[in-house]
């Protein structure tokens, strides 16, 4: 249990043959092979060798890189050399190449401004500010009640923040400060007066506030250090010996947490949790043991540990993670405990899809993904059976399949430690999303009852509302732009910071669309960014949530744009489609809307629409002001 953070126990062990031939394998120039090996648990030396190998390959001019690259600058007053290879491996595990730069030792503010002045720094996507109480000089202060120390620390962090924001144009990640284990009072240490730990506590609260009010990311390493236990986390020997900021046993979890945060900022966190049933949600096999034989009841220790895992899944669902079942069972047996056992925390309605049959789980998961219009790379699959886990890993490498311990009690810990569902923002729409997937089952039922599609669409009684995105309501639109893979016209992934810039740029206007029907309010499900260039409109971005595919919303949205274009006496509307392996259906929409293609490029095609034309496709949505 306590080793979860030290070993990253959710990663599969490296197979013996790969481990034995590791040195030989690291002679390859094949980044895909290196990337495949990065999925396993690796020790420090292996991680270092992998990173070194990549740096060698990278120098070769012929190197082929078909992976996204993220450039990270680390600002720290400690030794980071032990952490960078783990950071690289963590990023690679998530499909990114991480290019890491370190600032040399010294005063961060003066070094940074000096390097900026001399143009020595390249462009970065992220800048990590990793400080500790020693670097910030946080000491006890009984005379002044810690005011000066607090102000100095916050000022220093603010100066760095301003440099990064104004000069580097990168997203800043600020790490919380880890407390010290050395106490001089004991019980009253963080309550009584301005002790070191009390001042650290205040600074962390202020840091959180600063980050929430801006587009800075808050990296709460203190939380992780506390979970591990400060006595384990800190290693004073290694600090004095080599200026290691924390025990190198934890460089893996540090890296994993940091990469999760970056992944989340890019909208690539997981969305769907697929669960096995027998021995995963309850103890025993429902088909063999029957309702009375399975363990999922209060009063039974094992049963309660399964119920605890159910409660954890339910909590995830309540914050917007979609749940589904994939089990080898007859459909009747699979739902029996949900219906008959009143102690069960999870109910049938909590799942967007229940697949219970005897075909292989890889096929079932593929079907679940397609029914929910979600990508395989947004799925986490939990199964107690190692054979099933390996099968899914083998056939669906995009799906995340954590190793789980034999004891179910630790399942929630494994999922939270792995950080699949990391999220940098949270809005009411997130909650609505998970509910909506469950309601979708009712829509499907209605659809099966209607013979005519337009009759069905009309019976949904859909209403939509268009509004302009402003700085105060950009969380959901940004999230949608980052997360949408299928209905995504230009595949421009814009961060919150970039969207803010566009809002303040008079050439750009950003619209969001909210859709409601008789079953539920779907919330904001489409975003369009238009750029005005003289008497033309350029569709810079157009995304639509996969939850509302097939409801004619795209036609409604375009009709609103068209109305605007007519008002502004626009001569041409342009759309540029950047092909990915997932966004072909935007092309279908453009064709249905009667856009004409005006170039012949394969991956980047330009389309135009003349606003004197009318919309020829019908939609079944009324415009209403919903609020």
């Amino acid at each position, binding site marked *: 249990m306590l080793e979860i953070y030290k070993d990253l126990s959710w990663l599969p062990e490296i197979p013996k043959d790969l481990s034995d031939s590791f040195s030989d394998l690291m002679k390859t120039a094949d980044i895909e092979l290196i990337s495949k090996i990065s999925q396993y648990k690796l020790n420090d030396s292996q991680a270092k060798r992998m990173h070194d190998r990549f740096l060698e390959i990278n120098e070769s001019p012929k190197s082929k890189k078909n992976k996204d690259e993220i450039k990270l600058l680390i600002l720290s007053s400690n*030794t980071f050399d032990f952490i960078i290879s783990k950071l690289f491996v963590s990023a690679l595990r998530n499909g990114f190449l991480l290019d890491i730069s370190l600032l040399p030792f010294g005063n961060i503010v003066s070094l940074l401004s000096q390097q900026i002045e001399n143009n020595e720094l390249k462009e970065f996507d992220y800048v990590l500010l990793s400080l500790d109480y020693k670097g910030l000089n946080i000491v006890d202060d009984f005379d002044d009640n810690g005011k000066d120390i607090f102000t100095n620390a916050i000022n220093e962090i603010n100066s760095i923040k301003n440099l990064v924001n104004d000069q580097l144009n990168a997203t800043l990640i600020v790490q919380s400060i880890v407390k010290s284990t050395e106490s001089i009072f004991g019980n009253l240490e963080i309550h009584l007066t301005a002790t070191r730990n009390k001042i650290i506590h205040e600074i962390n609260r202020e840091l959180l506030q600063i980050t929430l009010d801006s587009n800075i990311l808050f990296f709460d390493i203190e939380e992780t250090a506390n979970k591990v236990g400060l006595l384990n986390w800190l290693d004073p*020997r*290694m600090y004095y010996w080599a200026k290691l900021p924390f025990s190198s046993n934890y460089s893996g979890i540090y890296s994993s947490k940091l990469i999760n945060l970056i992944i989340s900022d890019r909208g690539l966190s997981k969305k769907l949790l697929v669960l096995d049933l027998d021995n995963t949600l309850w103890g025993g096999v429902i088909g063999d043991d029957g309702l009375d034989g399975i363990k999922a009841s209060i009063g039974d220790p094992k049963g309660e540990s399964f119920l605890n895992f159910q409660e954890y899944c339910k909590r995830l669902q309540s914050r917007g993670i979609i749940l589904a079942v994939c089990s080898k069972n007859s459909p009747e047996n699979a739902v029996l405990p949900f219906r008959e056992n009143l102690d069960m925390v999870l109910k049938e309605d909590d799942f967007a899809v229940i697949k219970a049959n005897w075909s292989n789980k890889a096929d079932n998961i593929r079907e679940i993904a397609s029914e929910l219009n979600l990508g395989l790379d947004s799925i986490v699959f939990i199964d107690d059976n190692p054979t099933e886990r390996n099968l899914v890993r083998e056939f669906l490498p995009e799906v995340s399949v954590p190793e789980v311990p034999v004891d179910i009690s630790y399942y929630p810990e494994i999922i939270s430690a792995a950080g699949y569902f990391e999220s940098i923002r949270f809005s009411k729409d997130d909650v609505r999303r998970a509910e909506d997937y469950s309601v979708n089952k009712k829509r499907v039922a209605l659809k099966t009852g209607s013979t005519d599609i337009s009759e069905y669409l009309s019976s949904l009684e859909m209403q939509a509302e268009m509004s302009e995105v402003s700085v105060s309501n950009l969380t959901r639109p940004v999230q949608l732009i980052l997360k949408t893979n299928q209905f995504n016209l230009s595949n421009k992934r814009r961060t919150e910071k970039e969207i803010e810039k566009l809002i303040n740029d008079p050439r750009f206007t950003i619209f969001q669309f909210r859709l409601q029907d008789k079953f539920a309010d779907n919330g904001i499900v489409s975003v369009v960014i238009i750029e005005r260039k003289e008497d033309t409109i350029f569709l810079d971005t157009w995304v639509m949530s996969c939850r509302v595919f097939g409801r004619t919303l795209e036609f409604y949205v375009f009709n609103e744009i068209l109305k605007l274009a007519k008002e502004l006496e626009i001569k041409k509307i342009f759309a540029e489609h950047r092909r990915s392996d997932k966004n072909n259906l935007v092309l279908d929409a453009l064709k249905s809307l009667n856009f004409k293609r005006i170039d012949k490029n394969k991956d980047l095609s330009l389309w135009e629409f003349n606003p004197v034309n009318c919309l020829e496709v019908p939609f079944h949505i009324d415009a209403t002001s919903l609020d």
Partner: protein
Amino acid sequence: MKHNEEKLYKILSEVFEIDISEINHQTSQEETNSWDSLNTVRMIVAIENIFSIRLDIDDISIINKVSDIVELLRSNGIEI
């Protein structure tokens, strides 16, 4: 005992990226290019984890060749 020596050599070979056959008790920091201060820390961490021991800051400073490590392991009750 042989087993523990193998474990130690495997660590050294991984950390210093040298072939196991090149390692013996006389292998020293001076003659091994990759044996720098960063790799010393990596080696210490690996030894502590593999042998489940904890070395003192004084112990770390006296390590100069493989025989020093063997002595340290013995004084920590490891048969090698």
